[in-house]
């Protein structure tokens, strides 16, 4: 029996080896690199203690990029959730042309983020872009979308919402389609209107899917860098720089390998902690709403 159990555990080996190769080894290696002075002119794994971490603590650009990401991710995911839920509700019931709507809603998500960002860069172009043309027609002054800090952040959020709302829509629609019919029939018999049915039945029943969708999107949003690269290159100044883009600059472009290793590990830990807390808070919030 013991031999059989041992024999069975051998089947786990390939999976464990794969895991070790693609996750554990790179992670351990990154930890080692983060304590080295590896840089563009010193490709060595020499040990320099916590110097990279000390430098990182004083790197205001890194911390500002994290705070910016919290704002960007929190803001865009909330907007995506609201719009995505609305869209899912629209095509949930037997609406006319439902299939066509579903396909159309998914198009932005299917487009490569870099291509999408390039298109939006043209849309937001200060003198040739249709957004400013439209504002001009309405008698409003042109907005420097990509050359002023505030508008650039708005532009970036717009692209994120445009690109990823369909993903939220897809998850929430799947959730809606899997809901049982009985609670809705009971609500109808009780004479509940659409809004009351949504508040008391649909929304509480969708709580688990909502939490999952929001967390998945927050995880994805925490990696935001490709659209930043194309749309603003982190500018103007560093006002749209995200941790992902800053890590690219430090690690790949300037080849400060040791330093970027320290930053990426710190960022990883921060994200794990933040997202775990966010998941717990979201679950509690939705649960409370459900109970009420």
């Amino acid at each position, binding site marked *: 029996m013991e031999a059989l159990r041992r024999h069975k555990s051998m089947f786990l080996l390939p999976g464990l080896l794969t895991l070790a190769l693609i996750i554990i080894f790179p992670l351990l290696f990154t930890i080692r690199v983060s304590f080295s002075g590896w840089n563009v002119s010193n490709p060595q794994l020499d040990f320099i203690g916590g110097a990279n971490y000390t430098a990182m603590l004083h790197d205001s650009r890194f911390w500002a990029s994290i705070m910016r990401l919290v704002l960007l991710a929190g803001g865009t995911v909330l907007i995506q959730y609201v719009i995505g839920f609305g869209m899912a509700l629209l095509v949930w019931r037997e609406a006319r042309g439902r299939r066509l709507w579903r396909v159309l809603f998914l198009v932005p998500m299917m487009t490569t983020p870099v291509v999408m960002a390039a298109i939006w860069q043209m849309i937001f172009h200060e003198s040739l872009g249709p957004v400013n043309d439209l504002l001009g027609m309405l008698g409003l002054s042109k907005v420097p979308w990509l*050359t002023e800090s505030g508008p650039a952040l708005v532009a970036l959020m717009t692209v994120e919402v445009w690109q990823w709302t369909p993903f939220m829509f897809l998850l929430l629609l799947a959730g809606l389609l899997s809901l049982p019919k009985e609670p809705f029939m009971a609500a109808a018999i009780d004479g509940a209107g659409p809004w009351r049915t949504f508040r008391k039945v649909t929304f509480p029943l969708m709580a688990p899917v909502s939490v999952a969708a929001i967390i998945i999107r927050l995880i994805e949003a925490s990696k935001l860098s490709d659209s930043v690269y194309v749309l603003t290159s982190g500018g103007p100044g*560093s006002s749209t720089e995200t941790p992902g883009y800053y890590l690219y600059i430090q690690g790949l472009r300037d080849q400060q390998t040791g330093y970027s290793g320290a930053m990426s590990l710190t960022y990883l830990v921060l994200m794990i902690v933040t997202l775990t807390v966010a998941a717990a808070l979201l679950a509690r919030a939705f649960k409370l709403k459900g109970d009420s």
Partner: protein
Amino acid sequence: MRNSSYKGVVAAAIVVALTATACTGQGPVENKPDKPALFKPGSEISYSKYSKSYPKTKVRDVPGPCSYESISRKDYSGQTLKIISHAIPVIGEPTQLHAEQFEEITGAKVEVINVPFGELHQKILTPLQAGQPAYDVMFYPSLWVGDMAPHLAPVPKKYLDTPGMKDVTKAYMDVATWDGKVVQYPVDGDRHYLKVRTDVLGDPKRQAAYKAATGKDLRTPRTWAEYQEVAAFFSGKDVDGDGKPNFGSAEVTKRDDLTFSAFISRAAPYVKHPDVGGGLFFDLETMEPLINTPGFVRALEDMVKAKSTWAPGGANFGLGDEILSFGGGQSVMSYSWDDAFIQGQQPDGTIRNKIGAAPLPGSDEAYNRTTKAWDKKPNQAPYFTWGWTSAVAKAARNQDMAFDYLCFFSNEANTALDLTIGRFGVNPYRKAHFDAKFWERQGWEKDVAESYVHTLSGMESSTNRVFDLRVPGVNGYMSALANGVAAALAGQQAPQRALDDVAAEWERITDRIGKDKVRTAYRHVVALEDN
């Protein structure tokens, strides 16, 4: 059975490993004897058969070791040359074109990898540092020499003695030299200079209007203060009569798109004091950054002020935008590399022969960092900014073939044609290129051609030159500088505060790389500047 197959796998693995080791560990190759030439001396050369987009211009093959005739005698059949270059078109396109020609006439197989600018440094340096012969020939920006030099093969004497190499100007031989050895093969020459719309600045009506508005004569700006006044005067005015407003200045301002070079142009006359040597970016003795000293701060204050003279989106202009803004007639002035001027002179251009070149604006005073005071005297400091260069890796298996490719790439016939194709990114770097007649043959009017060659050749005689920070880790330094400049332009920080942050970052980078290592490299730059 199982045992024998296991042994077979191990044996095969050993064979593969030994073969791989043998392949990478081979010594230099034996070259075949010369074959009959495919070209007669002085043959007519044209690019027209390679693409419809190339001009039908014909030039004569100039006799010499790098000519079509000489290189076509070489027999490199059965050998492979690996080249890494920038993305097409800038330098990447001529790399591809000359590779195709080199294949045709020598029988070599040439593999060209084109890489976007942001990835070029890493793609070249990583295999070099690992001792891998990934590429035989590399095209890259000349300011990376501090990172590259340890891995480069010095240019052999027989190539240094070619007529083409002898004709390279002193400044560009200096750029190609590191620690007394020529390690970079000159294929391009770059500097920043001023470009102006002569049809606008030379128009009597506009001159009168300018005099009435400012009390000053309208002329090509000689200082950055004048540049600002002229740019501000024309911003928003329709100088072409096409119903669209024009703007005063087009500048490279996008953070990660060469803004650092634009800023150095603006800072040069304030910070390069003709009587003060020993470093521009650092104090050579202490390696203390000077980037936050008053001269640099003044330049950044000027640049922030200039925002009002830029076209919409001008605060996010990359080099391509600057080229099109001036070259397309939108902006009245600009300063940077040659490309905007060449773009303006394109045969179908709206401002062809309506433009002029001039030295970069100077200043009425220069900051003296030894006395910590401004010295009131006119100052000019030409900026020999980085351009494209090329080199052969020490690890290249067939260095003769690699250097033959570069000598062919830059032979007189090829260069004459490459100079006329704006998108190629090849700009004058030989004395022969400073001949106004050559440009007049391209359809340039005499005064345009003369302003161009006099501006370019005039820089050569300067004793107050500015070069790039050619030290290990230069990308990190320039990235930090660009970030500071961008922060000030975006209004995130005051210029002094922004440059204080840059100085602090530079100190951190120097500590990471090693003060002595950076100082040793910087000594070469200071030697160029204190000529």
